[in-house]
């Protein structure tokens, strides 16, 4: 058998030491920095041993994409180039990943939608590409402001989907995300989402791992499907592909392979739990009122809980970190005592509330809201007021902007 060489302990061309990922993330000393979310994405990538990054400008991810260009200029990224549209970017990402590279890209809003065809293809081809989604409005009337509606479109692509609350989540999860995605029994793309502007353009304290440590490089031979072999399923797409035909072989192939993709999502569960310390975080879930949220809505929920505490209303919190795999069991357990479950969301349809309603018993306990959309902010006062109204408590009228 050929000798298997470990890169751990050796140095890359920038003098960074390839470090055991678990040690780097959990044991290495951290230094606090006061950065914007975009700068944090750059700092995570500096430590990610990334082979290929493909960029295309769209607010609010443009800063991050430009900053990673700086990293490439400094020599930290294997290759960096620009696509001619988001569809092209995601197709190029696929090409690079087929070729055995660790691939990273960033997108947002209409860009995510334009590239959508590629995402089920990535999942089906088992490409562990990491895509940052800095959510923003997608529909007309146009908005560049945060709106999480695009996440709902990603939920059924077969990608792993995580929703970061803060820049700290972002820093940690970019690096940990590669570890989960690249597990041979997972080997799926990850959509790592955040609310644009609220995370990307906000300066906040983030604890960084040492800049002279980096992740071990991606090993394409751990892929469960052969690299760049167009004759083998799942990518026998050239030259008389049998799956293009309407016969029982085609149906059987699809049935088995599509189940395999979702089985891989399920198998990612234990790795996700291990790396991001559970699919959800909980606080005071013995309370009668519980807020369940993901992304920035968690932060706004935390502030609302402080306001409610000042008025003697006790309220618990569930932070949903991973949407795929979906933490159904965890949410059922965390909300079992709750009489009222509030799901504040930065989108008009309330997709998270729908997922939760489909998961828990007695779903009439779920109050879907408050909702804001199109980039509107969600002041904690509004969440607190909605909760108080539902509990039959007096709530002072709020005369803010637009009222």
């Amino acid at each position, binding site marked *: 058998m050929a000798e298997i060489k470990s890169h751990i302990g050796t140095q890359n061309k920038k003098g960074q030491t390839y470090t055991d990922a678990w040690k780097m993330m959990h044991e290495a000393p951290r230094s606090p920095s006061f950065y914007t979310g975009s700068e944090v994405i750059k700092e995570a990538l500096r430590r990610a041993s990334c082979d290929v990054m493909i960029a295309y400008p769209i607010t609010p991810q*443009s*800063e991050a994409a430009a900053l990673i260009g700086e990293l490439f200029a400094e020599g930290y990224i294997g290759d960096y180039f620009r696509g001619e549209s988001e569809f092209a970017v995601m197709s190029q990402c696929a090409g690079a990943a087929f070729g055995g590279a660790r691939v990273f890209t960033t997108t947002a809003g209409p860009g995510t939608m334009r590239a959508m065809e590629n995402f089920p293809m990535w999942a089906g081809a088992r490409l562990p590409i990491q895509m940052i989604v800095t959510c923003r409005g997608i529909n007309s009337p146009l908005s560049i402001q945060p709106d999480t509606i695009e996440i709902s479109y990603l939920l059924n692509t077969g990608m792993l989907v995580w929703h970061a609350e803060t820049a700290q989540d972002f820093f940690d999860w970019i690096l940990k995300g590669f570890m989960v995605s690249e597990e041979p029994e997972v080997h799926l793309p990850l959509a790592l989402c955040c609310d644009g502007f609220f995370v990307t*353009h906000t*300066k906040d304290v983030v604890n960084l791992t040492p800049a002279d440590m980096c992740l071990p490089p991606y090993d394409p031979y751990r892929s469960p499907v052969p690299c760049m072999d167009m004759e083998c399923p799942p990518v026998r797409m050239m030259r008389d592909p049998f799956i293009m035909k309407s016969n029982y072989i085609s149906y059987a192939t699809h049935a088995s392979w599509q189940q395999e993709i979702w089985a891989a999502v399920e198998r990612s569960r234990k790795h996700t739990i291990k790396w991001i310390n559970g699919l959800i975080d909980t606080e005071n879930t013995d309370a009668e009122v519980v807020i369940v949220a993901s992304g920035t809505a968690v932060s706004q929920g935390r502030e609302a809980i402080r306001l409610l505490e000042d008025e003697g209303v006790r309220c618990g919190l569930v932070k949903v970190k991973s949407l795929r795999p979906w933490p159904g069991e965890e949410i059922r357990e965390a909300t079992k005592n709750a009489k009222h479950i509030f799901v504040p969301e930065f989108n008009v349809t309330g997709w998270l509330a729908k997922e939760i309603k489909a998961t828990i018993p007695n779903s009439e306990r779920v109050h879907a809201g408050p909702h804001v959309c199109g980039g*509107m902010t969600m002041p904690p006062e509004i969440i607190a007021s909605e909760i108080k109204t539902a509990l039959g408590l007096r709530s002072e009228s709020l005369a803010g*902007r637009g*009222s």
Partner: protein
Amino acid sequence: MIKKRLNIRMSGLGGQGAVTAAHVMAMAANRDGKFSISNPFFGAEKRMAPAESYCRIGIERIYDRGELVFPDVIEVFHPQVITMGKSYTMPFYSGVKEGGVVIINSAQPLLSEEDINRLKDLNVALFYIAGTELAIEVAGTELSTNMSMIGSVAGITKCVSMEALDGALQERFGKKFVASGGTASLDEAIKKKFAKKEMLLAKNLATVKRAYEIASEWADKNKVELRVGNPAVAA
């Protein structure tokens, strides 16, 4: 009034440096050992279009983010925010909290009798500073207007120290800073106004200091006290 959290809304026009001002304020507060976050809010980036930024400073961890609907301090960077309605809502002071402060960059008073009365009802103090004139006088360029605005809010509320502001300015302008293309070209524009980077830092800091002194004097004279701290300890 001593508050656990000071929420500052900066309303300006694209290109004036409102976003940078909020970033510098938050960086300074962070240096002072307080909790702080800053974030911007704007549409498609262009000069003279409405642009806002927000800086939250407090004594406990801050989660709240996004547009500041209920601010304690409102800074108006340009008269057009008021006179031409270049604000995200009308009136520009909507949502201001009782006991707050409105700081306006203008050499002349701009508010109507009605506006003045509404602010009085809310016990909101009103401070005018000729911030652009001050920037031209001290730094030699109107591009330093945001420094006047930083000095004003710091002088009235003492929410950040001059020492921390000095450090934050060096951090922001002393090294290569990459942001959007628009911000990068503005950075280049301001650098061209000064012979050397040290000069840029010194002149901008001098503008902050001068505005800080003027605002501080006004706050003392008018007994305007709005501070960040622990109300329980203060009582």
